[in-house]
């Protein structure tokens, strides 16, 4: 079921919801709610899927998405995490912003809007994780 949801989200991301990165939010939420190991695996699977729809190299996507899941998982265990929608939103927002900052090397207005719009979906996406 989770795989089906991931494929649906990927299809939506490359067609209708073009400026969002829902798959990254999904990986971050997996890290926060399930811990580093499951998030690492989920990040790797999503990285492979994203590579199919992307022109960038497979290793790049695999590494970036896996690292995002792992980092989110480690932060939730070692630094801070409180299970509520606000914290999920905040972590998703910061996670997406950091991801695009590393990717592009700068904070542009489009990064802020992408992070905000993607993080808004975190209450919906966390239900997919909880399943």
């Amino acid at each position, binding site marked *: 079921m989770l795989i089906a949801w991931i494929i649906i989200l990927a299809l939506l991301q490359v067609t*209708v919801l073009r400026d969002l990165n829902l798959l990254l939010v999904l990986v971050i939420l997996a890290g926060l709610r399930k811990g580093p190991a499951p998030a690492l695996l989920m990040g790797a699977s999503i990285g492979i899927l994203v590579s199919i*729809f*992307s022109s960038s190299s497979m*290793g790049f996507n695999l590494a970036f998405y896996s690292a995002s899941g792992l980092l989110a998982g480690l932060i939730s265990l070692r630094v801070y995490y409180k299970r509520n929608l606000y914290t999920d939103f905040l972590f998703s927002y910061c996670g997406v912003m950091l991801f695009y900052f590393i990717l592009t090397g700068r904070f542009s207005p489009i990064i802020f809007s992408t992070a905000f719009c993607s993080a808004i979906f975190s209450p919906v996406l966390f239900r997919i994780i909880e399943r």
Partner: protein
Amino acid sequence: MENSYKNLPLRKLLIFAACIILISQIFSSDFRIKILNIFRFPLKLVSGSYYVLRDIPDFKEIRKENKLLKENIGNLNGKLVDLKESRVENKRMRQLLGFRENKKRKIIPGMVIAREALGLGDTIVIDKGKAQGVYKGMVVISVSGLVGRVRESGRSISRAVLITHPDSVVGGIVQRTRDEGAIEGNMSSGVIMKYLELDSDVKEGDKIITSGFSGVFEKGILIGEVVSVEKDVSGLYLRAIVKPEVDLRRLEDALVIR
């Protein structure tokens, strides 16, 4: 959750990293485009539905535009007769001067069914591939101007790199002054025309077209309009920020030049 953290020793992470490297070597671009071909139908379905739904609010506007276009057809038909006359004359003159006739280009129309998965919008996926005659390296345009170039081609699907992609380089000339330069994609500014001479008279609003020097892009395809001109970092050349003529973010249809 505590257990999942403990289950992450260094050795497992190293094995995981090795797997990443291995998978990235196995998954060549040919293999990826083959898998992408499997998703062709759902992508086309979702994109097609999205385009229809997006156009519904503009329906009244489209009807008005359609009426206007029908009126214009009548006027254009008159001009077409004049053009045909000029063409015949041009052909005769070329023959007299010994010019070789350019090869007639064939255009393959396609629908944009997907975008870059990372949301940066630098590549598009078109629903036409090798089966329809679309191959790697072919030029992609739209009715307004240059779009990019085909990077990967599958059986019935292909991926094109847009002119805004950092890997994209196109030879261009300023239509008014005939100054030459290289049009490069840029993540922050969109498209930049580099290596313009310091004494160049390039101004805001000047149109940029393809130079055709590389032999890849044919000469005269409209690229965009100059937004601003400044000295580059070295101070030896000018560089112009160019606004692409095609609205690449809202692109629905693409034409591949064969």
